[in-house]
């Protein structure tokens, strides 16, 4: 079966960019919005806690999602001959590296 090369290229780009954008968003706290679960309020960007904890997790995912979708839109314009050069290995090497980096980032919880 002949499959469009673009589909696999976009799938790899999405996976790689989302994983990288997410880890950067967590590391540097680039949350698109903040959720305050105690009050149910949403605030744009990173906000301080209000009457309870502030949750940035949803905001980090949204930031990474925008970055990944943007990257896919750009990747859509990449000529076929260049798209073919991106190996499928990146789709697991980068996320694996991100998993390991998260373990390193949170090592303080386990090394006390």
């Amino acid at each position, binding site marked *: *079966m002949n*499959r469009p090369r673009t*589909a*696999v290229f*976009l*799938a*790899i780009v*999405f*996976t790689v960019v*989302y*994983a990288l954008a*997410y*880890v950067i968003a*967590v*590391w540097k*706290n680039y949350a698109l919005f903040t*959720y305050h*679960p*105690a*009050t*149910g309020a949403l605030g744009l960007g990173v906000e301080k*806690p209000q*009457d*309870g*904890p*502030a*949750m*940035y*997790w*949803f905001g*980090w*995912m949204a930031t*990474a999602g925008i970055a*990944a979708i943007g990257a896919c839109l750009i990747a859509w314009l990449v000529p076929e001959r260049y798209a073919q050069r991106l190996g*499928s*290995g990146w*789709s*697991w090497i980068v*996320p*694996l590296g*991100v*998993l390991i980096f*998260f*373990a390193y*980032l*949170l090592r*303080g*919880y*386990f090394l*006390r």
Partner: protein
Amino acid sequence: MRLAALRARSNCGTINRIKSAPAATAQGEFVYIALLIVHGLFAVALLGALTHQTASTWLPARKQAGSFSGRFRAVSAAGYTNAIVWLYVGTFVLGAIIYPEFRISIRGVLEELETPAAMGSFELKEHFAVIGLAVLPAYWYFWRLPLADEHARARKALTAMLAFITWWNFLVGHVVNNFRGFGA
């Protein structure tokens, strides 16, 4: 990054006993517990499917399967793909819905009990879950029939990664929930 900064970001420096709006009532508590149970059931189904697929991908049965482990590995791995994708997304969405309640009522207990390893494990769980979601498009594409030989390594690696994430998240979620006690 220092642990103090991470904890401040999580805003769990002080014990918070405020009940969240959705679970403040008895009805809200019931909905939360029901969602938690469905979340767990989805996770069990996902674990089974992913473990089957991982075993049959990494240790395929070479001959007619007679034993239990042989039959376990002899399944048609590609047939699990769509179910795994839908179960992962479903489990993730349910987990995201009940996560705010965890942040408010269980995280504080973990702080009080001074269990940094449990908190760190759950932090890893939330990040691992997102990375699992991120790899789903590539995972799904590489498992499309007919299977392309050029993607065999990526297929195996992504399947193993998803299996690891799912097992980690299941065990951590189960253990951390037990700190507070079911429905307590």
